[in-house]
Each structure stands twice: as C-alpha cells, then as structure tokens.
C-alpha cells in the first residue's frame, strides 16, 4: 500500500518531476491537446486561473501511466500536484474550483498572483 520502491526508475522520474515543477499535471494528452475530457477540464481550470503548469502525457508510456497511479496511490488520471502535494483528480479540482477553494489554495502556495 505504500509508494513504490525508490529503485523503480519510473517512481524516481515521477518524484523528480513533482519536486522540480511547482504545478504539474499528469494527464492524458498534452495541455494544448488533451485526449480525455477529464484532463481537458483540469487544463481549462488551470488556464482559467492563469496557472503556469507542466503537463505530462501518461499515454506516452504505459509504465508511467501505471506508475503515477502507484506513486499517488490514486487510481484515476488526471492527477494534479502542487508544490509536491497531491491535490487530486478531475472531480476534486473541479469542486475546489467551483467553491473557490482552489484559487485560495493556489494563492497560498504562491503559484498564482493574489
């Protein structure tokens, strides 16, 4: 039930990516061309809020697609990380956006202008 061993190169890649990028979205497709509706929704929300983020297309690598699920211990994609913290998937991001919680959270994290 714990995260994959650190000797796993996919785990290490994900850990480094999460550490290197303040806002990173593991998604299907790329931000300019999402390849699923859930990923598209999260991209639209982040764009709407003016968030500078990095998108990682998990469809380019099956080990990565499975690895991100193991890394976060969360079964669905997309997955949003902010400052190393797993925030959630599409449902969570959308609910946070609709309630205003996401804007507040991103401001607190210093990844969008106040």
């Amino acid at each position, binding site marked *: *039930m714990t995260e994959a061993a650190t000797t796993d190169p996919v785990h290490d890649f994900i850990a480094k990516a999460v550490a290197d990028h303040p806002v990173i979205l593991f998604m299907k497709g790329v931000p300019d061309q999402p390849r699923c509706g859930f990923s598209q929704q999260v991209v639209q929300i982040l764009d709407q809020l003016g968030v500078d983020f990095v998108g990682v297309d998990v469809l380019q690598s099956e080990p990565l697609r499975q690895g991100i699920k193991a890394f*976060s*211990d*969360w079964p669905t994609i997309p997955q949003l990380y902010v400052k190393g*913290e*797993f*925030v*959630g*998937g599409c*449902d*969570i991001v959308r*609910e*946070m956006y609709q309630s205003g*919680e996401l804007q507040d959270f991103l401001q607190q994290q210093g990844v969008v202008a106040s």
Partner: protein
Amino acid sequence: MSAVLAPPDGREVFELAFEPQPAHIDANGHVNNVVYLAWAQDLAIAHWGARASADDQARWGWIVLRHEVDYRRPLKLGEAARGLTWVADAPKGPRFDRLVRFEAPDGAMCAQVRTVWCLVDPDSGRPRRVPPEMVSLFI
C-alpha cells in the same frame, strides 16, 4: 506492515474498550480476524464523531479504500481489548490514512490496522480534498 504501530509524540489518540462476545469467537477459540475490522471501523467512526462538529459530520462523508491488518496475540472470551486510533501524518489529496492498534489486557498487540479513508461529498459521492482545518482536528 510488521512493526507495532505507535502514534507519534503529541498525536491525538482516541481510545475505546472492546469486549469480545461469544459470537466473535471462531473455531480457533479466539476473536475472529474479521471482528477486528469491524472494531477498527467502530473506532474510526467514534473518533470522527468525537472530534468533528455536527456541521462537519453532515457536510462530509468517508469511504474506505483499503484495509491492511496484522494479527499477533489471540484474544479470548473474557479478555477486554483496548482499541487505540490516530491519523497519519498528513492527508494526500482526498486520502487520509488511519492507524489502529488493539491491545490485550497484558498490553500485547492483538491486531493492528492501517486503513486508507477517502473524504467524499455525501450528496455526490465524489472525492474531496481533505481541508487543512479538518487535519487540525486530528493532529
């Protein structure tokens, strides 16, 4: 999971006593493994009920994503168990891990459980990120 679980210093620990009933005893003469799982759930629900406000309890729901149980010392009829529970260091998005330990009257660990709970909106059933103010209730 093999080391005996223990709460970090300063972590709030919630406690309940559990009295084995004849129906809990299995063919091996001790409390059946499944009973501990029910007790772990009872502990978690009681802890939530003791710490969360009525508004929070109405606003939020919890579902289980995973249980992981270790069994050590058999517990027999007439031996009351001490159940202890506390939360993990921090939630991960909608997930908030909970640790549970059951002790026999001699203090030995009978069973311990790590459960992954997921916060949900009870109306939609969809996961929600655990808010910081909720974390502060338990840490």
